[in-house]
């Protein structure tokens, strides 16, 4: 079995098994916890509206903070939008998902994807440098933060090298790209990448609790 066969077959199956089991473990584990009772009297009805608002209200920082954290937000948007575009509108990626869901969709030309991927990769490096340079951010960063950065960045870098045919041979490069993606999937449930799931939960919860107490989300 070649490395590519391993990456396309067993490695993918194992990674997805760990991913699915891990995600469900964490989701069920948290949702089945006993919820904290809010003993205070609701100051206003419709806390859920506040919860929903909470999902969106932090999409851009509160005005006075913009000069301070605006750049961080922009970097964050570039990273996440880039990730989304490359993953959903890159033809090889679409075909991976199409094989699972059974239908195909429109994709972007390879050159556009490459450009987006380069910008995204640069943004990821800027985020890392910021994390290392800013003393506060550095202090609150732990292994998980760096591991999260690494498993997110690796598929971008390996994908680009594969696309540019810069590996000694393409099939090994493609295999390394795939293995880096499986690493991302395996790490996903156990670290901060779970924010893609918890984000909704935490923002809704914060928003609805604040609303119940009569505050803004």
């Amino acid at each position, binding site marked *: 079995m070649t490395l590519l066969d391993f990456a396309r077959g067993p490695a993918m199956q194992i990674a997805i098994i760990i991913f*699915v089991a891990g995600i469900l*473990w964490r989701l069920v584990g948290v949702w089945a916890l006993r919820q904290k009772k809010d003993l205070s009297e609701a100051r206003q009805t419709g806390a859920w509206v506040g919860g929903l608002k909470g999902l969106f209200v932090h999409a851009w920082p509160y005005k006075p903070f913009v000069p301070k954290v605006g750049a961080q937000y922009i970097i964050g948007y570039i990273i996440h939008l880039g990730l989304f575009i490359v993953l959903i509108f890159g033809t090889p*990626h679409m*075909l991976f998902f199409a094989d699972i869901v059974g239908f*195909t969709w429109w994709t972007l030309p*390879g050159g556009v994807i490459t450009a987006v991927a380069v910008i995204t990769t640069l943004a990821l490096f800027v985020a890392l440098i910021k994390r290392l340079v800013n003393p506060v951010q550095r202090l609150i960063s732990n292994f998980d933060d760096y591991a999260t950065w690494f498993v997110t960045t690796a598929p971008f870098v390996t994908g680009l090298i594969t696309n540019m045919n810069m590996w000694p041979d393409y*099939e090994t490069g493609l295999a390394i790209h795939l293995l880096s993606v499986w690493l991302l999937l395996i790490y996903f449930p156990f670290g901060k990448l779970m924010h893609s799931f918890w984000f909704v939960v935490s923002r809704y919860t914060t928003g609805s609790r604040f609303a119940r107490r009569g505050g803004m989300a």
Partner: protein
Amino acid sequence: MKEHDLTLGEELRRQGISRRSFLKFCAGVASSMAIPAAMVPAMADSLAQARRQPAIMMAYQECTGCLESLTRSFAPTLENLIFNFISLDFQHALQAAAGDQAVEAIKTSMKENWGKYLLLVDGSIPLNDDGIYSVSHGQSHLDSLRELGEGAAAIVSIGTCASFGGIGAASPNPTGAVGVDQIITDKPILNVPGCPPMPEVMTGVLTSFLAFGALPEVDSLKRPRAFFGDTIHDRCYRRTFYDQGKFADSFDDEGARNGWCLYKLGCKGPITHNACATLKFNEGVSWPIQSGHGCLGCSEPNFWDKEGFYKPLSAGQWGSAEGIAAAAAAGVALGAVSAVMSRRNQNKISGGK
């Protein structure tokens, strides 16, 4: 003088072939094998000095497609001459002798040329049950290969079966078929995979063996680098469409008619090393992608066992999805257990309130 003793140069003169066209042929081979042009005259000289190379070609578990490809495309040209110049002492489909006589021919050639003959093999070799699944003249091909391999100067595995096991080794591989280099490990072995392999590659390999007395430089799968160094995708004339994101979505849509890239239809060009994209088949007439079908990857090991020729390269090989269903169940169970444990802990801390 016996015809057998002529050098290639003498043979060429006898057939009235000019030095000029011989040099042209050498230049052609040299360029296809990335041999520097400056070396062409030297190569031609040493080739002209070459004496007949004794060769034995064995057909094992195979379909004769390789031989068809090799012989069909040999128009009466210099390529043909090179092929004829090696003295093929045994090839069961080409020779007149049959049965005991044919076996006698192998024995004689082996004895006379022990340690010097080139062994050409097509077809895989079954290992299961002592190789009983493929037998000629009462001898298993496994034994035959071991015996012939011992006296060979070098072995050329022609086609994917002889190189990597090929179709015979397709899952579940009932006969335990393998390629030559899984059995013989102490001889120079060259693989010329392809289903069928490209005749020009054979000519190139034979020519360079005659000229330099050694097999050409090979890659990690023992394929001559000169022909297998690039992927089909590297050299494909549809590559610009790949880069532009223009793909055929079916074999009969606008994209297909416009000759767009066949990646979505399962083309394995990006992971396939071969020279089809530049040399083409039937003396440069066409090749699979030109005729509208994605590359199957026929010069790569296990090309038939990658979950279908029409599945895009980036799609996963799932096998069965049961593992994932089980994983989902296990994840839910794990989550429930950890929640119960946490609740207990919560109760303990809060004293049940």
